[in-house]
């Protein structure tokens, strides 16, 4: 392989292989090697901090239900939350194309500020670069974040165990369809809004039962299928998922039908999957559903100790087949 292809950034197998073969190999340390959404590190004081980073290249910059500013804050707030951390501080770095309208930059900045306030985090430092026209497309951002992990919380992709319930916090696919519908030449008119929102508050609520929550993951690029597979591989367990129980809006299904997409591989920016101990599943589901971010949550399946590393789907018509990771790309620049 000589050159990087778009598939390497899609969140699926190609990207995973590249990360493992190039970056894990080069940097190799226990915190990184877990390949969770962020790294949890125990300080000499005994306290645990979490840190995470993410870059945003979404196109278009403003879309129904959000913009790159909101996305930048939510992305890192959510990655920290998925480590079981309470997000505290965010950094914001911008790489801006020469000629980008100042009014748009202001809109993005205000949106990021509003989102940070909504999440209760502070943007404490940042960076600004401007490059000549054509060297980036409009604006790219990066946010990094730091949070703290409470005692008793042990959340990781490698924690899923047989018998655990798989809970999904809401509808799949809204973000990707909303972003796509904002692209030039995309001639479907859809009223779907991105689900981009901070999840730290709802996650803190379910972490009030820390012994119940084994794993948290937000299905961004690569979609739910990729996320569930990652957990199976990290935990060396299998999963059984019931397709009929996975919430997907009928409009998203229709859009998928028209475009040839599969809702299992669509990116989300305001949803999470929670692997919880079975005996707590009912309670956790009630806690999630009581919040506006989780109103449509559902138990969609369970973790098993057969077909380790793989997710089996019970299809709508009652058949069974493997639900694999995203191979290649669906569409670029969704996040």
């Amino acid at each position: 392989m000589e050159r990087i292809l778009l598939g390497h950034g899609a969140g699926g197998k190609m990207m995973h292989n590249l990360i493992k073969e190039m970056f894990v190999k080069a940097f190799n340390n226990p915190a990184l090697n877990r390949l969770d959404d962020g790294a949890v590190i125990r300080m000499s004081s005994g306290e645990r901090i979490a840190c995470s980073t993410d870059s945003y290249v979404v196109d278009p910059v403003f879309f129904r239900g959000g913009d790159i500013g909101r996305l930048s804050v939510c992305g890192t707030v959510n990655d920290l939350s998925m480590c079981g951390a309470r997000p505290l501080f965010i950094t914001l770095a911008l790489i801006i194309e020469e000629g980008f309208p100042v009014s748009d930059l202001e809109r993005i900045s205000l949106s990021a500020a509003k989102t940070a306030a909504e999440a209760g985090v502070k943007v404490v430092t940042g960076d600004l670069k401007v490059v000549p026209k054509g060297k980036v497309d409009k604006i790219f951002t990066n946010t990094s974040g730091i949070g703290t992990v409470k005692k008793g919380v042990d959340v990781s992709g490698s924690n899923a165990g047989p018998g655990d319930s798989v809970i999904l916090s809401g509808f799949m696919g809204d973000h990707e369809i909303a972003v796509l519908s904002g692209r030039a030449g995309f001639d479907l008119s859809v009223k779907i809004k991105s689900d981009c929102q901070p999840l730290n508050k709802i996650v803190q609520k379910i972490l009030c039962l820390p012994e119940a929550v084994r794993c948290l993951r937000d299905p961004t690029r690569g979609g739910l299928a990729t996320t569930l597979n990652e957990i199976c591989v990290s935990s060396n367990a299998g999963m059984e998922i019931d397709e009929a129980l996975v919430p997907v809006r009928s409009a998203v299904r229709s859009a998928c039908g028209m475009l040839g997409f599969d809702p299992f591989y669509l990116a989300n920016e305001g949803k999470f999957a929670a692997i919880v101990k079975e005996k707590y599943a009912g309670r956790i589901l009630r806690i999630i559903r009581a919040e506006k971010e989780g109103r449509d949550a559902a138990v969609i399946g369970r973790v098993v100790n057969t077909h380790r590393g793989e997710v089996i789907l019970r299809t709508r018509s009652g058949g069974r087949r493997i639900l694999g990771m995203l191979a290649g790309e669906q569409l670029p620049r969704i996040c």
Partner: protein
Amino acid sequence: MKYISEFYDKRIAAGLSGAIKKIAPARELNFMDVCGTHTMSIAREGIKDLLPANINLISGPGCPVCVTPDEDIDRVIGISGQKNTTIVTFGDMLKVPGTRSSLEKERGKGADVRIVISPLDALEICAKNSNRKIVFFAVGFETTSPGIAAAVAEAARRKIKNLFVYSSCKLIPPAMEALLKNRKVKIDGFICPGHVSTIIGSSAYEFIPREFGIPCVIAGFEPLDILQSVYMLLKQIREKRKKVEIQYKRCVAEEGNPVARKILSKVFRPSDAVWRGLGKIPRSGLVLRKEYKKFDAGSRAGSRAFRLVSNGAPNNEAKASNPKCRCGDVLCGIITPDKCGMFGGKCTPESPVGPCMVSSEGTCAAAFKYRHTSNVIRRTF
């Protein structure tokens, strides 16, 4: 979604499964589909789980991407490297390997290659890029080719000067005949392509029961459609009737769509064509009629706009496609994907060797992506 969700009811599926098990004979039967969308649907829904073990659903050359030969890919790559030229095609064509490269790799090196969902989108690209030659790499069966014909007719009407079409469009019934004649694989029934049939109707398949004694059912794409079609094939076999039946009656009329066929034959005419895996099949491809030759990027005589370089390589170095690739046999249903030595190992969706793994509707891609739980597949992740 109306006309979709009613057709995947779990309880009816279970009922059909039971009915199928009751009338299935004891011997092994092979039912072949010749439509990539059927292949995908069967795999995605786990239909095989609902059938008795002696009923095999095998896939034939139903993916127009997969049956496009190396030569076509190489020539289009060659065209893509020329000045002020844009290649426009359906998404799946990007990753199909030719002898040396693919359109996706060429795009990574700077070629202008764009994806469209409809052939009409190519006309818009022509209008917005009047200084560029827009070459539409046309791939598809009878479902898609009328739309391509309509786009070319529209381009002629609008006097568009910068549209060119490289046609790799093909016709399904001649391929079905070739498969039956070559007899390398036992076929006991055809699950006929539902959407191709909305255009060509049912008479196009009459020769199959008449000359070969094999039952045909034109099937829809939802799980219940496929299950009902298997049931109808088994019923024909049991009652020793061999004919063409339509299961997909809500979309397929016996006469097909005469309006679409008229537009198709106004712009295109049948010609011999090479199919990957099947070789040359007489009158199985479509070329532009001479009234539309000025749009034709594929013929040396017809178009002065392009230097047609074979193999896409400036120094004509021809590297043979991987001899271990068994796409040809997979496309004829001679082997199932897992019997190819490279399946799941050297050949995966991220690093495909042949088109059957590349295409989103390829038999190998379906088998890998939606692996049936009872298959043992070597894992590379």
